[in-house]
């Protein structure tokens, strides 16, 4: 690799990282007025925020932070994740208003609710 190319590569890397920063900032600022995304963390055999209220059209992402696999299963068959091992994610977009109870089908004492209202 020539010296010039190396510098170019470095500049590209710097640009890329600032782009990542910019996109992170934009997500944060965008979140309040028009929420399109929400997150639920699974930790210590619990859904850390068991009741989450979102607007229609919101995509909810569950992330398993435990050393043990879990699942995210709707109580009335609306959604069902595959098994989530450590770090695995499951997303579901809630198009219509309603209350959506769910649980972990391996550890059914773990329960949560997504409330979707305009």
């Amino acid at each position: 690799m020539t010296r010039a190319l190396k510098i170019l590569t470095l500049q590209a890397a710097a640009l890329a990282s600032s782009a990542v920063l910019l996109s992170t900032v934009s997500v944060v600022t965008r979140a309040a007025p028009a929420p399109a995304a929400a997150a639920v963390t699974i930790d210590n055999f619990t859904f850390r925020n068991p009741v989450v209220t979102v607007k229609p059209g919101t995509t909810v992402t569950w992330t398993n932070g435990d050393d043990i696999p879990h699942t995210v299963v709707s109580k009335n068959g609306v959604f069902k994740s595959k098994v989530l091992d450590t770090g695995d994610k499951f997303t579901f977009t809630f198009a219509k208003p309603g209350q959506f109870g769910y649980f972990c089908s391996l550890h059914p004492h773990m329960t949560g609710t997504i409330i979707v209202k305009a």
Partner: protein
Amino acid sequence: MIDEMNDDRRGFLKCMAWAGTGALFAFDGGIGSSIGLDAALAAPARRAAVAPFTFAQVSDSHIGFNKPPNSDARATFREAIAKVKALPQQPDFIIHTGDVSQLSRDDEFDDADQMLKATGLPVFFVPGEHDMLDPDGGKAFLDRFGKGSRGAGWYSFDHRGVHFVALVNVADLKPGGMGNLGPEQLKWLAADLAGRSSSTPIVVFAHIPLWTVYAEWGWGTDDAAQALKLLARFGSVTVLNGHIHQITQKVEGKIAFHTARSTAFPQPAPGTAPSPGPLKVPTEQLHSMLGITDALFVRGHDRIALIDSTLA
């Protein structure tokens, strides 16, 4: 005669004990007592003596688990099997009380299968919740380990006068609940037990404990009481479970309950940690918290001695 003696002493030991390493527990028609293995063998038989037999219990092998405190659950399962093979009296068979795999993957089931087959002993399985994670909700487990079983994998068999019942309490679990047997299985159990003499010794095995060890962590079975009611008329009932990765025991009436250690990782005692996740013990401690259970049956005594030993 034996029943009378049991009645006199019934309820004497209605307790739950946390057992230490290498403890030996004998159950005589529901009356628990701590005795030595030699004493159990040497005790005079009250009925016609039948050669004692043993079977071994392994549990919660979680093949595929590779996080702290155990980077290789295959290796510790191999050690557990070597421990079974090294028992002074070879067991007639092995029971595996579930969570064979970590994620119900074919390679996990296959490795467990190959290791167990190498013993040359028959093996009887029940699934744990970790064995129900394939897209078809337990089909992979049943295809391999559940041949001839009914429903989600329940069955029964007889061995030298003892009736063994394998129950499944990890299928179709209900939101907010614990383990669950379900009406179909309970109906089958009632029919399975119906024609049997009350003097038939019964061994029941299932993954999740059939009594409530700790409801906050889901360590129990919601409809277990209905199963236990069907078992209440029998003079000697032993219930063997896994799931909680530690030894607990309780004797209630004529029913003796016991949970086995895992061969993969220990879990905390009820309520002693924020969650029932793996207990991250130092490597040098791990083997003293994993183990197997050897069950010795002396027919003349209607008695099962359960000997827990660690991999240390």
